[in-house]
């Protein structure tokens, strides 16, 4: 069942067309990657999903119901962080959560708030004013705020921006826990493409305000050619072998002794075997197929 | 209020044409001396241009020779001249010369005018015209011309305390100079439509109605101490 359906979404700011035609759907239980280069219309689309921005055209449905007509009901079941979580700096973490709990559409007890504070690892700091919090702590508090009312759908816009590696891993693990343990549906917009590749099962890529491709992450990646980066001890022999036996392949020198080769999946095994046989001294073979390549390829079109 | 006394001063003296001004005045002053002290309730009703004031109630105290006090809970407006200063002025015969003037009937009372001219150049009073009934030794009208506040006219009515020369009603008519209020201070919103046109000088009246006189019952000096 589609939890989120976006059909032909468009948004104009005066004469500027921020979003021209974006469509995608997110199924129940998906961790859905929402990708696009800067200025593609990602942020505008997500703000439309959360009714921060009024679309010029198109339709947004949550749980089969129009967002426009069922705003309050829908938002009761949605939790989100848009860009960075901002709080009332002059209030404590706990007081901030109390404020948002009060208007979450659900009855949330003080105990539940405390449990959420414990869950995101802010116990002991709940009485401190947010003005003294680091970016990472605010991000955790943002996640607490997002999950406080036990939403069915979680929308995270660049949730790891500004986090240190440890913080990034924590957020990634948290999303996986939400998916696996609580069966939440997560829509995740991120510049960390590797993150999406690791944790998303479905994705959409938009560019210049339009949907470029939508589908299962692994199926999409399967369709593209497999690339390898090969380092050799004897470049002369390597070049001769390629020219003689694999002349149809596209090969490019990355740096001295290291080459980037584009190929189909079925060529990989015989190529490596042949290179070993010719004695060109294979030192390393690195698979380079990635969402990053796919993303660049798609958005360059 | 001392003015009340003043009148009392002037009360003495008959209506005889044979009397001199000094004799008529002496009669009045002698009669005043009958009153050692008195207190009375007074109702003050003022109709003064530029001032709107409700009827006020006060208590007045007098004790010879010049102790005088007004005690009011609220704000009471009284004339500045004619209340106390004239009394003191008249009691010192060396400070003025009195001239007998015309006969005049005031409110059906036959009176003689005595014009009093101060001999002291620094005196606030320039001229006091006192209309005295010589048959009753009562003052029925006083017209004071002063340096700083123009002319004050006082009419007297008597009732129960005629014998002491204490009036039961005094009507003051005073000159009020045009009242100028900076616009920034008075910021009422409908100035323009409301503002009346006043002349430079307007007449205002203050009517004092006395009641519950207690005469010569003794008043402690403490009453006159400033609070």
């Amino acid at each position, binding site marked *: 069942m589609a939890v989120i359906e976006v059909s032909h979404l468009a948004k104009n700011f005066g004469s500027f067309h921020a979003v021209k035609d974006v469509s995608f759907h997110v199924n129940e239980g998906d961790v859905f990657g929402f990708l696009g280069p800067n200025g593609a219309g990602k942020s505008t689309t997500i703000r439309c999903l959360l009714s921060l921005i009024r679309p010029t055209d198109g339709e947004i449905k949550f749980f089969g119901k129009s967002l426009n007509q069922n705003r309050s009901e829908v938002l009761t079941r949605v939790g989100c962080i848009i860009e960075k979580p901002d709080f009332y700096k002059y209030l404590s973490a706990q007081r901030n959560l109390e404020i948002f709990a009060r208007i979450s559409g659900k009855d949330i007890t003080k105990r539940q708030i405390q449990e959420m504070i414990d869950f995101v690892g802010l116990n002991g700091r709940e009485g401190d004013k947010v003005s003294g919090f680091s970016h990472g702590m605010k991000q955790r508090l943002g996640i607490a705020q997002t999950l406080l009312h036990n939403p069915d759908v979680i929308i995270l816009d660049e949730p790891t921006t500004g986090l240190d590696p440890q913080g990034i891993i924590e957020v990634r693990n948290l999303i996986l826990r939400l998916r696996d343990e609580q069966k939440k549906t997560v829509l995740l917009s991120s510049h960390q493409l590797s993150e999406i590749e690791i944790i998303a099962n479905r994705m959409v890529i938009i560019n210049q305000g339009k949907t470029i491709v939508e589908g299962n992450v692994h199926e999409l990646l399967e369709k593209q050619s497999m690339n390898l980066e090969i380092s050799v001890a004897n470049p002369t022999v390597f070049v001769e072998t390629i020219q003689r036996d694999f002349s149809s392949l596209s090969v490019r020198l990355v740096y001295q002794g290291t080459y980037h080769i584009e190929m189909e999946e079925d060529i990989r095994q015989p190529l490596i075997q042949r290179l070993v046989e010719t004695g060109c001294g294979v030192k390393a073979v690195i698979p380079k197929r990635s969402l990053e390549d796919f993303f660049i390829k798609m958005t360059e079109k | 209020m001392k003015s009340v006394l003043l009148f009392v001063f002037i009360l003495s003296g008959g209506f005889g044409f044979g009397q001199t001004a000094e004799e008529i005045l002496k009669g009045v002053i002698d009669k005043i001396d009958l009153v050692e002290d008195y207190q009375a309730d007074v109702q003050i009703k003022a109709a003064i241009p530029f001032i709107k*004031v409700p009827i006020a109630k006060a208590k007045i105290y007098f004790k010879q020779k010049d102790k005088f006090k007004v005690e*009011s809970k609220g704000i009471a407006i009284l004339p500045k001249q004619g209340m106390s200063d004239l009394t003191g002025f008249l009691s010192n015969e060396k400070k003025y010369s009195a001239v007998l003037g015309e006969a005049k009937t005031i409110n059906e009372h036959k009176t003689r005018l005595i014009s009093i001219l101060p001999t002291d150049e620094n005196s606030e009073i320039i001229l006091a015209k006192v209309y005295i009934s010589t048959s009753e030794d009562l003052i029925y009208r006083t017209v004071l011309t002063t340096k700083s506040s123009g002319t004050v006219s006082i009419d007297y009515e008597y009732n129960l305390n005629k014998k002491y020369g204490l009036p039961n009603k005094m009507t003051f008519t005073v000159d009020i100079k045009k009242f100028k209020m900076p616009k920034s201070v008075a910021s009422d919103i409908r100035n323009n439509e409301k503002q009346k046109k006043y002349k430079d000088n307007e007449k205002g009246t203050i009517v004092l109605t006395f009641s519950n006189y207690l005469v010569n019952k003794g008043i402690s000096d403490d009453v006159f101490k400033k609070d």
Partner: protein
Amino acid sequence: MLWKNTINELLKIATKIRSYIGIGALTLLILIVLFAMIADGKSYIGFVTASFEQTLSFNGKILNGNLIAFIIMQMLIVHVPLLISLVTGDLLSGEEASGTIRMLATKPISRTGIVLSKWIAATIYTLIMTVWLGFLSLFVAKWMFGTGDLIVLNSNGLLILPEADLAWRFALALLIAFLALWTVATLSLAFSAFAKNSVGPIVSTMSVIILFTIIGTLDVSVFDSIKPYMFTTHMAAWRSVFEDPYPTSAIWESVLILVAHIAVLLGITLFRFNKKDITS
């Protein structure tokens, strides 16, 4: 949801330092006036009665708590709007500046609900300021200076109102003053819906008050037709309560014009905020 968010809004106001700047400044101003009256109140009274002093003597306690309350109200009606807009001008724009508007607007409360709860909170804050003004000026002044009849200075002269006739007048005056301040609060909230930080709404509110006040005092006939409809013209309507007889129809007219301003300004705020794309 509306009341829950109103509680939130009141809580935010109660925990923000700027909310106390207004109350603190108001308290300080009133204490300064009270101190000045203790030190030199007699000469102030002299200024009031000077025009009559040569002819008339004023007996009784002129410098009393009622007069001081009246003076304070008259002096502060210009300044309290600034103190109020300091808080109310920040209500929407402050959320925009801090980014919390995103958090707020993605909750199940409607945009109308957000505006109304902020407006109700602004109203309560304005009410508290008015009550505080009334308490300090009336009760504290009466405690320090005692009570008595009130001398009111009008451009036509003096009016003396008996003490027994004052309690209801002060109550009604404070109610009308509240209405005027409520209009200012709603105005700054309206500006707040158009701004991304609180400086703009505060400055705009004061600019409008100053501009309208200047237009109101200019004796130029071109403005005559709009003067009766400018809210600043009616900000001093509370003063009419201290006339005798007090002009009932004029007071009602002022009340209606102020209420109409509040309704229109609130309508503009609702329209603007409902249409607004939150892009911050």
